[in-house]
């Protein structure tokens, strides 16, 4: 009788909540936050309904590519404790349903963006989805220990697309926003990877700390942080923002570097190392991105209202 149980489960229609879970709602909150910042920080104005639609399309695209990611990685997810209870490895959904849902959500997001906002933003959304679902998930993630750097590129699209939904053209500022998240992701993720035991190695995903060792990972964290600092300050330096963003970027980036130096240079104690510098850096990196984008919006609002003139 026990062997018939899974079949009975798959014969039932999937709960709608499992479809929702498949879109990675928690990742989506950060996507929505940075996309909103891109829309709000862009020069010019957009009708609130269209602004909302642009954010919705970006969120749907992110959801669609998250679904495709889990459709592709269902076997890997089944082998890792953190992910083995997701709808697909948990046996609560048919694979073809996940694939079709992901494709539909992605296609719908692109059409919505194209029809409501414009086809440049829609083309960028398509590029972001292909980048995450195909280039990252299917091609490079299982092949290179720099996979986090490449994955960070996918997370860097939302503010860029949000900005371009308003302006309709690609300029230095949205590209810099892209670059900020791109260079922020590796130190953020690798700091976490240093103090959290993961089982990526078990399923054959070459994460940097496992493949290149802890020392190399620490050096990479420091290098990316040193590259990130000038890029984060650049929007102010080129005159794209006012001093509110400038001061925030300079202060926070200096702090980021200060916290990354001990992480980048120290070696773990043989036993009982609490990994405090790494935990501190990881926590700070989250506040860093949040505050940087909030400052960007505050800067634009202040300039728009003429508070600084």
């Amino acid at each position, binding site marked *: 009788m026990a062997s018939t149980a899974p079949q009975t489960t798959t014969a039932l*229609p999937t709960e709608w909540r499992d479809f929702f879970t498949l879109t990675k709602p928690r990742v989506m909150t950060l996507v929505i936050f940075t996309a909103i910042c891109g829309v709000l920080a862009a020069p010019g104005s957009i009708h609130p309904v269209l602004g909302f639609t642009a954010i919705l399309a970006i969120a749907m695209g992110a959801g669609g590519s998250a679904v495709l990611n889990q459709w592709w990685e269902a076997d890997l997810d089944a082998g890792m404790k953190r992910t083995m209870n997701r709808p697909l490895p948990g046996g609560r959904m048919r694979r073809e349903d996940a694939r079709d849902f992901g494709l539909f959500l992605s296609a719908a997001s692109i059409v919505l963006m194209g029809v409501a906002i414009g086809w440049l933003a829609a083309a960028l959304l398509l590029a972001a989805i292909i980048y995450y679902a195909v280039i990252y998930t299917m091609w490079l993630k299982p092949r290179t220990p720099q996979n986090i750097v490449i994955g960070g590129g996918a997370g860097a699209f939302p503010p860029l697309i949000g900005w371009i939904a308003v302006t309709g053209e690609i300029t230095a500022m949205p590209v810099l926003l892209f670059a900020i998240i791109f260079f922020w992701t590796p130190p953020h993720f690798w700091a976490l990877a240093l103090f959290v035991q993961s089982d990526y190695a078990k399923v054959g995903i070459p994460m940097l700390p496992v493949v290149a060792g802890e020392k190399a990972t620490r050096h990479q964290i420091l290098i990316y942080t040193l590259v990130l600092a000038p890029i984060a300050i650049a929007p102010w330096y080129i005159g794209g923002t006012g001093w509110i963003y400038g001061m925030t970027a300079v202060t926070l980036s200096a702090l980021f570097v200060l916290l990354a130096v001990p992480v980048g240079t120290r070696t773990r104690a043989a036993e009982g190392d609490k990994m405090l510098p790494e935990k501190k850096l990881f926590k700070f990196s989250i506040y860093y991105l949040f505050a940087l984008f909030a400052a960007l919006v505050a800067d634009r609002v202040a300039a728009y209202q003429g508070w600084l003139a």
Partner: protein
Amino acid sequence: MTPEEEKEFTRRRKSRNLVVAGTLLFFVILFYAITIARIGG
């Protein structure tokens, strides 16, 4: 299918249909609003 399974089947189908209906309604309203916004702009 046992009666319990049939009950669960109906419940899941119903809740899925309600979510689909709600989503469709939302997009009908959204597309109306987008049309008004774009004509107005």
